[in-house]
């Protein structure tokens, strides 16, 4: 199942550890954290879209969508940057003739950003379909409406 890196914004503390870990593991950082209006921090990286616009515009089939999600073949990349211009989230970048975007640290057990986040704000999950955001928002509303649930006993680690 295709997976993406997601961020729980209520936990992000804008420490940029994810950016630096990514940069060390992948030559350049595929995740970017910025503070919005001094009150929240948002990490942004490739959304692993199920209908990827980058693959749609790619003239050379370097970017394609397969069963494991978005795939990139650097051999076929001509460096036209159309994918960079097509991505609605601005998360693709062309560096040294190669497209850099989050690929969940290909081949590793955990993406570096997820492993390193001191606040546990990043996690890997199956890609949510379009409209997933609405679903998450509804879930938050319901949680708030139902109020505090009974607390688990102290000493048991949750997350």
């Amino acid at each position, binding site marked *: 199942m295709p997976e993406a890196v997601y961020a729980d914004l209520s936990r992000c503390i804008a420490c940029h*550890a994810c950016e630096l870990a990514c940069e060390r593991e992948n030559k350049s950082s595929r995740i970017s954290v910025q503070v919005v209006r001094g009150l929240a921090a948002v990490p942004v990286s490739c959304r692993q879209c199920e209908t990827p616009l980058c693959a749609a515009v790619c003239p050379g089939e370097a970017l394609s969508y397969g069963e494991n999600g978005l795939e990139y073949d650097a051999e076929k990349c001509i460096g036209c940057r159309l994918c960079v211009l097509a991505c609605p989230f601005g998360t693709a970048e062309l560096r040294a003739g190669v497209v850099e975007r989050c690929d969940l640290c290909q081949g590793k*057990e955990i993406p570096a950003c997820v492993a390193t986040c*001191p606040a546990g704000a990043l996690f890997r999950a199956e890609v949510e379909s379009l409209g997933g955001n609405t*679903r*998450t928002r509804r879930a938050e509303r319901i949680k708030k409406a139902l109020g505090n649930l009974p607390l688990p006993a102290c000493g048991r680690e949750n997350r």
Partner: protein
Amino acid sequence: MEVKPTQEKTPLTGSCHPGNCHPTICPYCSLGCGFYLELEEGKAAGISYMPEHPVNEGSLCPKGNTVLEVLNHPDRLKYPMKKTEKGWERIGWEAALDLAASKLKESLEKSGPDSLAFLGSAKCSNEENYIFQKIARLLGTNNVDNCARLCHASTLTGLGKTLGTGAMTNPVSDLACSECIFVIGSNFAENHPAVSRRVLRAKEKGAVVIVADPRITPTGWLADLALRLEPGTDVALLNGMMRVIISEGLFDRRFVRERTRGFSELEESLQRYDPETVSGITGIPSADIIKAARAYARAGTASIVYSMGITQHVSGTDNVTACADLALICGHIGKKGAGILPLRGQNNVQGACDMGALAEFFPGYGKVEDPCAAGRMRSLWGAKKLSESPGLTVTEMLEAAGKGKIKALYVMGEDPVNSNPDSSQVKKALEKLDFLVVQDIFMTDTAEHADLVLPAASFAEKEGSFTSTERRVQWVEPALKPPGEARADLDTLFGLAEKLGLDFTCRDAGEVLEEIAAAVPAYGGMAKERLKKDFGLIWPCPDPGHPGTPVLHTESFRTSDGLARIVSVEHKSPAETPGPDYPFLLTTGRTVLHYNAGSMTRRSKSLLKKEAELYVEINPADARTMDIAEGNKLFLETRRGSTEVTARLTEKVNPGVLFLPFHFPGTNVLTADALDREAKIPDFKVSACRIRRE
């Protein structure tokens, strides 16, 4: 499709496997986070995370993540160097140690032992600090100190007088069990990021988080209640909260009766700290003061987390004392999830203090003036005589050097030019010395003034024990060889001791630890092999069978009668407040991307890329009045000096307040050297300042 986290298998990431993977402890802050260094052909080539570590659970902040850039930096000092007219001249180790020893002996003979001063390192190991202060003391002086003086000296005095000991009372992991977390003067989200995970865990369980800070920081984002107080008014806030708690009967009567002394005097002294008066002093709405007080007192378990925001003031000792009072009257101490957590700075500042690299304490905190303690040290060291008068602290040392009273200064792993207040005075003082030797991994701004520079090994290149802020003593083994001819500080000190004619029987760190176990009761049960297992031991660990003590004060306090002392303190103004000549209040602090004086992080390419230069946070309203735009270059001026900075407009600071990170040279050119009377810690947090445009 719902978004749910997939199960993470872990443990090792990267190309780490047992063959090339070396466990180590981060050299930056005092959390003591564990991770693995991946080695390739004898060089540090990668980092892997350590999910099994009890403190950071595999996570790592941006500084730890970029530590390779520091380890492998071309600026690493490789050879001993002597300063000559023609500049730095490389010399051999024998010649270097001979030079250092002869200069120290010269000063000793001509002007007596108190003409010498020794600045120990909160970054070096316990063994290194122990031997360092032993050398100083065997030469006859107590002029030995370390940069703890600049950060948590007020913790030692404040908690020392109330609880009997100045250490963090609970481990970081306990925060997840607190129902109320009161954070005052700490920006842990930036400076101790791994603490965030436990605070967030507590919040998931419904904990209330209160953050008191003049600025809105990422730590403040996690708060349920933010108290934006005027800098320097912490005692007023704490007293105000305590008054509410006492007048509403929310204090823990039984705890106060059975385990403390001094409550009635406190109650009396709090009369004038009613919420309205306190609101007037602090700028916090009285309703919020009351809310905070009730939340803290009513919680079943509550923790106070604090750091520089309250220690670095002329009222630092009082601020810490007031925190202890608050915890004591509510009984929130001595049990899991309830305690006082001073988050310390350096990776081994706790250890350096435990080892007696302090002007007034022997190893184990026996006072140098106490004949019993002195006698004990004398017999342990086989010394005929030890000085029993407290020595000069780091700020006093520099002042005395400026007056010509200190002739020779030995600096190990410290950068007072950038860490001490009033940098221009520090530089003048260093120039006046007859002899300055600096032992470090880089040519710091302090080392530039030295007569002799000795290259040191970094954390990954030597063995030894390091004590984290939660009193966890962990052992580190060398993963790499030091560059060039750099040596572990311990080896350099052994060499120096030999040249000085001091007879040390220990030959390596493990043997030094054995001596430490005999000298420091809290380390009594520590030995290298024990520390290498299970992520070390938490002191006190008085004997070899003892499992360590995560939570302090469970049964009794470390006072003579076992009872805590509630000590009333009064709000007093900072040494310097804004006035017509200097209308702004300048406060200083840290940011997440850099570390302390910056000698390491300012050499880290990727960190510099993100934060390259000294900036000042200024409120947009103030900027508008002065016609300052984002990115403008300004001069900040105080009575000490002037520094050029770049303007960053932000609502993080209130109008009238300016914030400077101290990771870049120039910040401490401005700060005042007004000291807390008891702890001698400088008032870094409050200076009167003005802005000049070019």
